């Protein structure tokens, strides 16, 4: 088995062993379910068989949950020194980063898989747009991947999990909301730049069922950037 998958499997296992996975699943499904079905402008108020309200809730819940998943990935290993044990096994720094990234992404995908009953329920209530649903889920996965890679980078910078969590959240906040706010308060080229950087713009168009290559490139480049920087910061142990 590939080293990336071995590490991913071990990390996923430890999410479930340490209860993090269960807490995350319960909270995610609780929040999303409550606001999707029971409270506020829920699915029944929209008057359409659309998962739009779920996507906009999950957009926020996942934003808060991903740093909680990623904060321990590297910070804990650095604190306990197990990183030395891990990196002297027959694996490269890159495989470690990819394995850890994959484990958090798999956990998010498991959480999203538990919301498939929403789709089934809704399809009994009316005609749903399959393309829109698939795009929306795709958008959530891509968004999570972006935040996981940012969180992984934050985790690679420190050996304190709380610092890693807050750091990931504050970097994420820029993409999540601040760039959008800045875009609306500027005009001209700065406005365009900020609007391109804003994750919410790209997510919104995806959750409406529009797949644009620019959105895909945007998400994938954040993921690559985050993973690249994480690997770089792991390798940096050598540069004293």
């Amino acid at each position, binding site marked *: *088995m590939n*080293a990336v998958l*071995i*590490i991913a499997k*071990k990390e996923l*296992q*430890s999410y479930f*062993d*340490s209860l993090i996975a269960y807490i995350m699943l319960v909270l995610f499904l609780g929040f999303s379910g409550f606001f999707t079905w029971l409270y506020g402008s829920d699915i029944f108020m929209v008057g359409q068989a659309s998962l739009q309200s779920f996507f906009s809730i999950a957009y926020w819940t996942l934003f808060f949950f991903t740093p909680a998943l990623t904060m321990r990935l590297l910070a804990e290993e650095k604190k*306990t*020194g*197990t*990183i*030395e*044990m*891990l*990196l*002297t*096994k*027959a*694996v*490269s720094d890159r495989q470690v980063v990819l394995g850890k990234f994959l484990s958090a992404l798999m956990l998010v995908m498991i959480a999203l898989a538990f919301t498939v009953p929403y789709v089934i329920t809704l399809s009994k209530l009316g005609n749903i747009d399959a393309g829109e649903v698939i795009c929306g889920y795709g958008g959530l996965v891509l968004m999570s991947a972006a935040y996981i890679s940012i969180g992984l980078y934050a985790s690679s910078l420190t050996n304190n999990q709380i610092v890693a969590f807050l750091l990931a959240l504050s970097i994420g906040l820029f993409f999540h909301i601040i760039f959008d706010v800045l875009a609306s308060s500027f005009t001209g080229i700065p406005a365009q730049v900020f609007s391109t950087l804003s994750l919410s713009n790209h997510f919104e168009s995806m959750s409406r069922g529009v797949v644009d290559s620019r959105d895909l490139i945007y998400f994938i480049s954040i993921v690559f950037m985050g993973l690249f920087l994480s690997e770089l910061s792991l390798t940096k*142990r*050598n540069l*004293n």
Partner: protein
Amino acid sequence: MNIQIENLSKQYGYQKAVDHISFEVKPGEVLGFLGPNGAGKSTTMKMITGYLSIGEGDVRLGGKSVREYGDDLKKHIGYLPENNPLYLDMPVIDYLEFCAALQGVHSSDIGKRVREMVRVCGLNAEKHKKIGELSKGYRQRVGLAQAMIHDPEILVLDEPTTGLDPNQIVEIRKLIRELGKEKTVVLSTHILPEVEATCDRILIINKGKIVADGSAESLRKQATGQEIIKLRIEDASPDVIMQELRRLQNIDTVELVDKTMNRFEVQSASGKSSRREIFQLCVQKGWVLSELIPIETRLEDIFRNLTTN
């Protein structure tokens, strides 16, 4: 697979942790790495195992440079890091399986290797516990087990016997000796008798530099300029014996250690032995020579001499 270290250096900021050291370890050899804290032992080991990049110089394992083939060479190395870091929330068996899989042990052999390691390291009673629940000695065994799980050709052990009780220490030393017959073993330790018990060769390093290299015996030979003997001579008063001993040619100093038991400590002139003279003297005077104990220079003294100044 041998280890060749060529002119290896590593600098942390302005401090040179390892300063142009060179040595070679062959298969079937156990090398003991000695030195005071901060001498550069762990840094050297980290460079051999590929955790830290090489500053200057090179490390070659089986002729291949770690600089170029680092990731490929890792699977030939078993490494027990300093302080033995482990995943405390993992059960012993799961952890060993994880390590075996990472080291590229074929999935059909993993079970067999894990069972073998559990047996060799005496982990049978604890194998289903989480590592965090184990005592320090058992954790150390898990650390050794993970280092040896893929049957590596090179073993690098940073203080392998810390935290073990005397029985375990004897077992682990025996194990290392056994492994050292075929494999290339480098171990570091603070415990000097351990080096004598397990290592074929000793390397003392101080402030990043090698200050001594050789077997325990050859180090002793270098260090002992003068022969020291403990004596017990009966049937005469200590003062008389002292006087007679002082007259002997080959004796440099005589010291009365224990008056009631007539015990003396004698230091011979450098390069000479005074044992025969002492015996002849006793025969001539009709004294009984009831003890004659040659004192070897202790490794501790050699170590202290080399590393303090």
